């Protein structure tokens, strides 16, 4: 299975029925394609929209209605739109059940860096958008990312090196190799991907991993 699909499929298992969820671009949005049977979630877009789906046929679009990526959407029955102050009041106020976001780095304390790459001395890009608010406000923060960068270096660290998006907020880390939970005791290895060994995970993880007696395989 392609890594993106694997991560998205596993992330989708975190959806609970009735959850209000905000999904970051990329893998998180993909997770919406794998929502388990019988589970209904309400998508939230931080631009101020609840319970929507993207549309893809010319004629279905409304030029005044889009999601937070400016993709054309329709509001589903029971959905709504609000202004952006209300939208972020809802996000920051703890009324979003879960957010799934990508990251450049995460660490064993639940810190996350996903907004700032140094493009020149003192010049950070691309900016945080709504990520900081979601990370602080959402009841559950799920971070999806590739376990290592292109050079094979761990992105699951003892301590993030890039500018943080938020401190001590991540609950669950899902990569193509493992599921890890941030606990008061440290980072616990909860699951490994099919065919992946604990040692393989440890070998590419800079963070200290707590390994329970039993580490099941992801069921995808």
């Amino acid at each position, binding site marked *: 299975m392609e890594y993106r699909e694997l991560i998205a499929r596993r992330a989708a298992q975190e959806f609970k029925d009735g959850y209000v969820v905000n999904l970051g671009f990329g893998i998180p949005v993909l997770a919406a394609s794998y929502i388990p049977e019988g589970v209904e979630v309400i998508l939230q877009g931080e631009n101020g929209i609840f319970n929507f789906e993207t549309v893809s*046929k010319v004629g279905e679009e409304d030029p005044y209605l889009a999601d937070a990526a*400016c993709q054309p959407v329709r509001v589903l029955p029971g959905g709504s739109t609000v202004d952006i102050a209300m939208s972020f009041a809802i996000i920051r106020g703890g009324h979003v059940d879960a957010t799934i976001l990508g990251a450049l780095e995460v660490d064993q304390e639940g810190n996350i860096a996903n907004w700032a790459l140094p493009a020149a001395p003192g010049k950070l890009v691309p900016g945080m*958008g709504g990520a900081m608010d979601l990370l602080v406000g959402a009841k559950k923060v799920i971070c999806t990312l590739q376990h290592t960068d292109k050079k094979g270096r761990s992105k699951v660290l003892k301590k993030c090196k890039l500018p943080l998006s938020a401190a001590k907020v991540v609950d669950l880390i899902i990569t193509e190799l493992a599921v890890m939970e941030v606990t008061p005791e440290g980072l616990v290895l909860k699951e490994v991907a099919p065919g992946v060994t604990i040692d393989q995970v440890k070998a590419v993880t800079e963070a200290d991993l707590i390994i329970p007696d039993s580490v099941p395989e992801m069921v995808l």
Partner: protein
Amino acid sequence: MKSKVIDLDAALDNVKDGMSIMIGGFLGLNAPLACIDRMVERGIKDLTLITAVNSYVGGGLGIGKLFENHQIKKYIGSHVGTCPAATEQHVKGEIEVEYFPQGTVVEKIRAGGAGLGGVLTPVGVGTLMEEGKQKIEIDGQTYLVEKALKADVAIIKGYKADKVGNILYRGTPNTNPLMPLAADYVIAEVDYIVEPGEIAPDQVGTPGILIDAVVMGYGEEKTHEIFRNIWIRDKKLA
């Protein structure tokens, strides 16, 4: 009550080089595209631009054009990433960029309009956002003091306006309802202009007392065409 409907150019005469300006819209959607296009033609420059988010992905629409035409001196908002010109100018040091979390910039604008000194937010604590800012402890929790924001001009986008400036929004109104309180001169660009009384009082999203000028935008048909075309171009629609 006097009509506030004026020509777009007459309204833009109030937007001068060097001003601070809030522009509504979210990645181009429900943004005052006609005003922005005319600002590009007029070449109003050295602007401090305040928005929640930046341009449509890839630029070329809405505020992206202001960056592409080098009219922005300083940008205050939550990212430059969607706008290649803004990103490049930021990296080269040609524009000043002040980042705030999106919810924070939204509340800063709201605070500016609402006569509040600022916002006490937990967002950004433990990050670079703390730099140079007051912090305050309330019941054991730490909050950043983010100062209120105001601007010389706000340009917003509504769906309909009546002639005395009451605005009806459609779809996702995003920052448009907040900005009219926070600026000295407020232009509302709309796709329909109707008589007072035609918008039901409880559907008014922004009371007319907050609007200085109502200008006709591209209208619904052309607005629809613009978005249909970019969504088809970007393979969102087929």
